[in-house]
C-alpha cells in the first residue's frame, strides 16, 4: 500500500502513454528534480559535486548512449570511450575556434552530432555482421579515436599531453556576472551537466516510447521479422548508431569539461569503454533509468568498499591488500546480482515496485 495505482483511471490513449501513469511516481520525480536543482547545489560540498555527482552525470550520459545502442537495438559496442573522445575533442575545438556567440551546451550538441556521424561510419559493418563480430568493428573506433588525436596535435591545440580547459568556455553570455555566479564553479558545472543530462534522458525516453524506439527493439529482437513487417532495418541501425554516439559524445564532453577540467587522450583508453559497458549491463540493458542506476553503483561501490575496508581493517592490514579485497568483494557482488537478476538493477527495481504495490498483503 506504500505504492499504489488504484484510483487512477485511464480514459484516453494519450493518458495511457504518459511517462508517469501513477501520480505518486510523477510527484516523486518532481520532488527529486527540485531537490537536485534547488537544494543539492547549496548543501553539497565541492568534493561531493566534483568527485561524485558530476562524474556520475557524465558517465551516466555515456552509459545511456551505449544502452540505446546495445540494450535497445542489440548492437554490441566497445567503442564508447572512443566516441566520448571524439565528443570531448570536438567540443573543445568548437569552443576554441568559434566566434563569441558560441556557448558550451550548443558546442556539445554540435560535437555530439559530428560524433554521431562518425558513429554511423563505424556502424556501417552492422549492416552485415552481428554480435561479437560487431564488437571488433566498434573496437576499431576506439583505437581510431586515440590514434587520430595522437597523430593530429592540432586538435589538442598543440599541447603536449593535456590541456586545461579555460574558465571562459563556461561563460554563458555573461549570465554569471548578472547573477553574481561563477560559471566555472562546481555548482554551475553541476547544474549545467544536470540540465544537459535531464534533457537527453527525457529525449531518450520519448524516443523509446514512440515508433523509433519500437523499431530499435524490433531490430534487436528479430531483424528478419522486422524487415518483413516493413521496418527499414539498415536505417534503424544507422539511426541507433547516430543517437548512441551523440549521447556518448556529449558524455565525453561533460566528462572533460565538468568533471576532469582537463582534456587529454589518456582519459579515453580502452578500460573506460569497459567501465561504461559494465554500467549499462549492471544497470539493466534496455532501460534508460537503469543506465543511471548502473552508473551510480559501478562508480560509487568501489569507493564505498575501499572506504569500508579502510575503516574496518585499516590498522590491521596493508592498505593495498584491503583495497584489493574490497575490489574482489565488489566483483563477487556484481556477479551475484547478475545471476540473480540478469535484467540488472532496473529489473530489480521493477520487482520491488511490484512488491510494494501489494504490500503488506501480497496475496
Amino acid at each position: 500500500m506504500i505504492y499504489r495505482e488504484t484510483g487512477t483511471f485511464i480514459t484516453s490513449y494519450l493518458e495511457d502513454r504518459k511517462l508517469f501513469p501513477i501520480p505518486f511516481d510523477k510527484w516523486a520525480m518532481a520532488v527529486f528534480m527540485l531537490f537536485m536543482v534547488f537544494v543539492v547545489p547549496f548543501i553539497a560540498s565541492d568534493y561531493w559535486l566534483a568527485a561524485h555527482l558530476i562524474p556520475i552525470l557524465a558517465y551516466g550520459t555515456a552509459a545511456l548512449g551505449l544502452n540505446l545502442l546495445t540494450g535497445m537495438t542489440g548492437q554490441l559496442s566497445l567503442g564508447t570511450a572512443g566516441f566520448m573522445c571524439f565528443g570531448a575533442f570536438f567540443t573543445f575545438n568548437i569552443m576554441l575556434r568559434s566566434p563569441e556567440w558560441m556557448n558550451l551546451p550548443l558546442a556539445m550538441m554540435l560535437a555530439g552530432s559530428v560524433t554521431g556521424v562518425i558513429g554511423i561510419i563505424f556502424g556501417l559493418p552492422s549492416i552485415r555482421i552481428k554480435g561479437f563480430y560487431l564488437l571488433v568493428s566498434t573496437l576499431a573506433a576506439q583505437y581510431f579515436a586515440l590514434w587520430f588525436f595522437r597523430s593530429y596535435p592540432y586538435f589538442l591545440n598543440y599541447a603536449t599531453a593535456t590541456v586545461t580547459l579555460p574558465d571562459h568556455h563556461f561563460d554563458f553570455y555573461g549570465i554569471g556576472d548578472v547573477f553574481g555566479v561563477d560559471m566555472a564553479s562546481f555548482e554551475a558545472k553541476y547544474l549545467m551537466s544536470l540540465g544537459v543530462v535531464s534533457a537527453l534522458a527525457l529525449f531518450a525516453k520519448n524516443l523509446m516510447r514512440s515508433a523509433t524506439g519500437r523499431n530499435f527493439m524490433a531490430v534487436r529482437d528479430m531483424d528478419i521479422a522486422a524487415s518483413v513487417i516493413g521496418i527499414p532495418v539498415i536505417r534503424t541501425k544507422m539511426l541507433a548508431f547516430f543517437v548512441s554516439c551523440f549521447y556518448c559524445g556529449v558524455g565525453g564532453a561533460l566528462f572533460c569539461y565538468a568533471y576532469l577540467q582537463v582534456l587529454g587522450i589518456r582519459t579515453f583508453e580502452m578500460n573506460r569503454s569497459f567501465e561504461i559497458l559494465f554500467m549499462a549491463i549492471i544497470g539493466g540493458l534496455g532501460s534508460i533509468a537503469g543506465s543511471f542506476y548502473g552508473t551510480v553503483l559501478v562508480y560509487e561501490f568501489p569507493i564505498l568498499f575501499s572506504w569500508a575496508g579502510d575503516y574496518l581493517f585499516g590498522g590491521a592490514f596493508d592498505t593495498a591488500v584491503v583495497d584489493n579485497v574490497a575490489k574482489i568483494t565488489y566483483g563477487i557482488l556484481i556477479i551475484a546480482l547478475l545471476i540473480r537478476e540478469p535484467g540488472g538493477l532496473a529489473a530489480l527495481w521493477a520487482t520491488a515496485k511490484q512488491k510494494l504495490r501489494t504490500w503488506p498483503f501480497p496475496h
Partner: protein
Amino acid sequence: MAAGNPILQIDNITLAFGGVTALNGISFDVAEGEICAVIGPNGAGKSSMLNVINGVYVPQEGRVVFKGQDCTRMRPRQIAQLGMARTFQNIGLFQGMTVLENILTGRCMKIRSTWLEQGLNIGRARREEVENRRAVEEVIEFLHLQGIRKTPVGKLPYGLQKRVELARALVAEPTMLLQDEPMTGMNLEEKKDMSCFALEINREYGTTIVLIEHDMSVVMDISDHVVVLDYGAKIGDGTPDEVKNNQDVIDAYLGVTH
C-alpha cells in the same frame, strides 16, 4: 468470397540452395479476395515459397508479380509497402516487447513523423501515436486480445502468441496476408478460432490470404483454392475438391510403390 482477377502471379520460380533445389519451376496464380492454401509433405518447399513471395529469398529464375508489379527482386520492406503482410512458422514476435508494442510495430509504415519529432514528443508524433493506438485497439478487439495488452509476449502461451502475430500483420491493413502454418501446435478449440479469424478477415476486409497448413480438414473447409507442392514441384492446383481427387496428391501424401 468470390474469386476475382489474379492479384499474385507466381511464374516459373526456381530456387536452389547450393545443390539443393527447393523450388523447381513453380507457377500458380492467386486470385484477388480468395483464400489460397499451399499444402504438401514436409520439405516440399512451402515455406521457401512464402519466403520467395515476400522477398526474404531471391529466386534464381522466374518472376513474382504482385498487384501488377514485378517484385521478384524487391526487399521484404518494399513488398510490405505494396500491401503484403505475413506471419511466421516459428513465431516472429519481438520477445522483449509487450503485446501492445508488438502490434504497434505493425503500424511502422504509417509513421510520417521523424525521430526528432518523436524524441521531443511534439505535434505530429503525438497525434500519430494516438491514431495508431486506435487502429491497434480495433484489431485487438477483433482478435480478442484485450486482456493481455501489457503482457510481455514471451510470457504468453503459444496459441496466443500466434494470435498476437496475426494482429501485428493485420494492423498494417494488408491487401494480402501470408500465413505460415497458423494453426500448428494448437488444440481443436484454438484451431477453430484461427479458422474463423481467417474467414472473417477475408470477408470483412477482403484480404487475400495465402496460408500453409497441414490440417487437411481446415484446409478443405476454408480455402477456395489449393496448391500442392511435393519435392519442390507443383503436383496439384485447383479447388479443394479437385485436389482431393488428384491421384498425384494422394500418392504424395499416402506414398506409392514404384
